[in-house]
């Protein structure tokens, strides 16, 4: 058969393909509300006490002889000092756009596993839910409460799609450097070969839609051009996972139709020589938050950013100037919508009797409770939806008044 005839054959298949076209029409319906909500997942277990610590605490000085001496940090508020790597965020603090919940955790207890800990943080469930049942994340379930949510309403940014955004509701995911360049012919034939495989079909349709709406697709007509476009994308691969690129991409989306964005930052598992490792990780976090603020412009006023981790670390430093896996830790909040410039929650103290299992900071609050109140402030969800659907089993308790609204 001649190629042209085959092509006609493919086109003739158009009728049946119409049942599952590779491109779905992207609709830009009016999205619910104005609020923007960003979750940065800090993978590896951020050392909350390294970020923010009580000053002049003899217990802490005894348990962290090296870490505390080498990084005292300057005072922030209420007798707490802030790691100097976050000094660039002090202007946000002064403007009431930065806050911390210094002694929170998920309900995860026991094995102190990063992976189970992150699963629980992202699933938003409690210990009563078997790990196998942790299907889907709370940011995805939350979309069920947003009438008019479209796939662009929520965006996962980076090479991975994090559990926190997976689930029943359609979301978008992309990595800042990714491109999709095809000849018209290849595009047509790809539609044909993906038609029979729902997973590939869905991924390819989304990829084509997104690449077009993001302006990262060109119609090419030669191998040379194809290679050039790939080369260009690959050139940017290294920096694509960097905090500035992720945050810049998020800000660009959030200025458009997107209301919810999430990406991850790694480098928090500081078992050894924490002074260097934590500084680098905090530099990157600070850079991400300032890039968001700068990129969002006026929309920053409507934005809440939560930076959450799977658990805190041991109060005592270990044998290698690092810290091991713990329980209670810090959540960082930022954004123009925030009632910031303060610490939220109760500080448990770090005297030996105050510690959990004589090693970890005792969490005094459920991190999900703050996340739930921030969602309520942003999108007006009712309590039942938050307590039963988004974070099943959480007790919202008293309103901490996180947002200005």
């Amino acid at each position, binding site marked *: 058969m001649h190629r042209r005839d085959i092509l006609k054959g493919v086109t003739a298949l158009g009728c049946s393909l119409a049942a599952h076209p590779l491109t779905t029409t992207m609709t830009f319906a009016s999205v619910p509300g104005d609020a923007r909500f960003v979750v940065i997942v800090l993978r590896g277990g951020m050392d909350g006490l390294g970020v923010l610590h009580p000053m002049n605490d003899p217990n802490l000085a005894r348990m962290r002889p090296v870490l505390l001496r080498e990084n005292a940090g300057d005072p922030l508020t209420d007798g707490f000092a802030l790691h100097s790597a976050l000094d660039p965020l002090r202007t946000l603090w002064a403007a009431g756009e930065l806050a911390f919940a210094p002694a929170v955790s998920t309900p995860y207890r026991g094995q102190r596993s990063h992976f189970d800990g992150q699963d629980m943080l992202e699933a938003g469930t409690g210990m009563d839910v078997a790990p196998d049942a942790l299907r889907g994340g709370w940011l995805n379930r939350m979309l069920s409460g947003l009438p008019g949510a479209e796939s662009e309403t929520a965006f996962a940014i980076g*090479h991975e799609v994090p559990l926190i955004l997976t689930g029943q509701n359609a979301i978008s995911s992309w990595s800042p450097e990714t491109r999709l360049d095809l000849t018209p012919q290849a595009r047509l034939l*790809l539609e044909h070969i993906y038609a029979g495989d729902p997973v590939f079909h869905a991924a390819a349709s989304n990829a084509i839609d997104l690449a077009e709406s993001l302006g990262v697709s060109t119609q090419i007509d030669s191998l040379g051009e194809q290679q050039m476009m790939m080369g260009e994308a690959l050139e940017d691969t290294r920096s694509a996972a960097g905090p500035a690129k992720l945050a810049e991409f998020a800000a660009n989306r959030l200025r458009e139709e997107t209301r919810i964005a999430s990406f991850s930052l790694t480098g928090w598992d500081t078992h050894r020589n924490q002074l260097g490792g934590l500084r680098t990780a905090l530099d990157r976090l600070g850079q991400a938050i300032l890039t968001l603020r700068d990129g969002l412009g006026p929309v920053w006023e409507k934005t809440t950013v939560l930076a959450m981790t799977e658990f805190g670390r041991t109060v005592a430093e270990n044998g290698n100037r690092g810290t091991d896996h713990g329980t209670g830790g810090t959540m960082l909040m930022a954004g123009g919508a925030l009632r910031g410039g303060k610490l939220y929650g109760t500080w448990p103290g770090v005297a030996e009797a105050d510690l959990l299992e004589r090693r970890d900071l005792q969490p005094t609050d459920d991190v999900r409770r703050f996340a739930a109140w921030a969602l309520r402030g942003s999108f007006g969800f009712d309590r039942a939806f938050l307590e039963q659907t988004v974070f099943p089993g959480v007790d919202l308790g008293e309103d901490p008044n996180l947002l200005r609204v």
Partner: protein
Amino acid sequence: MSAQLAARYGYGLSPQFDPPAGAAGWIDLLGAADPGLAFPGPDREAAIDAMTAFLEAIRLERRNNNAATRRARRNASRASLRFVFDGVRTALIRAAHVPAPLHDRLTEFWQDHFTVEVTPVRLRAWVPLMTANAIRPHVAGRFADMLKAVVTHPAMLLYLDQATAVGPNSPVGQRTGRGLNENLAREVLELHTLGVDGPYTQDDVRQLAELFTGLHADHSGFRFRPNMAEPGYETVLGVRYGAGPRARFSDIDAVLDDLARHPATALHIARKLAVHFISDQPDPRLIADLAHSFRDSDGDLNVVTAVLIDHPLGQDSFGAKAKRPMDYILSGVRALAPPADRLTALSNTDLRNLFDRPMQAMGQTYRRAPGPDGWPEATEAWITPQGLAARIGWAMAAPVAFRRDLPDPREFVTTALGPLASEATKLAARAAETRWEGIGLVLSAPEFNRR
């Protein structure tokens, strides 16, 4: 069936070799010599020399930072990076030119089970050595031997911070004030042996961390240093180790033997094998049979892997798994079959553009898993819009760099996929306007990305 088995236990079909006949053909390979060794792996002495030189260059630059020391450090860094790229070259050559690369697929599975990273840069040349010397020789041997080889390997000791951990009451601990680090002990229990649902507590983690003190590594290799080891006995899962007056390596050997043959370990390994090779949701009876064979054979991976390959419950789920990016690229190279000398001649820059960066764009940065639990298994984790776009980009643009004389797509669809090719893919191969696009479409097809 042969094509399906080749996709699952090798890197798919090759124009050069017929796949082994049926499950029995693959099982026979387990008892035979590793054919990949025809293409030699890294030279240990040369790698150690390169790392030693790199550390020395870092030291000199610190002491006297000028243009010459900076240049020397950069050159030494590049020299040590060569071992990582050589590992990639060898992987590409073996994928294309080993008749049935079962040992390579198994090595990748166990490498992921015992994840280490090529960062920080000072330890990167240890990583290919661990793959070649601690993992590969044992993929059809005893699990306990692999566990011990890995847990005493500098790559693992440095990656999970054991190399610098010290018993606080040991002579070195008393003199320096240094102490324990829980990292390796926790991951050995949680990831390498019992699994996170296994019967261990925080106290077992702590005790194992104490027992592991003395496991030391520096740039020249592994050493057991009794004067770093915590004195006295430790109790792990109710068993006492190290009751003698002096710390002995044999106590660590003993605890690793006990962990390797623990029923929870059998179950954990059985589940991981089934999830990796068969399906994201494997039949519980398959897991039970694998665990049973692991216990009965005292962790003989030759026996366990044979049960896996031959199991009837695995036969109806071909195509259930998505190839991960490494598996995908190696399958592509096997199907393209570039001559070995072309692969040997790929420069580091070529490898960056054809392998390293594409792997990152597809979501699996080479030897830099996000954590010690390795890479995800689920199809949905890989076949994302951005991940699939990166695969399509590679499929269209990379093949011509591996071989300028691209095959005819109408033949390629058969040599690459055989009976797995769908009618739609065959039609696309015929309808493509150019060779490169036809090849790209075949390599983008779902059946080429699944196994």
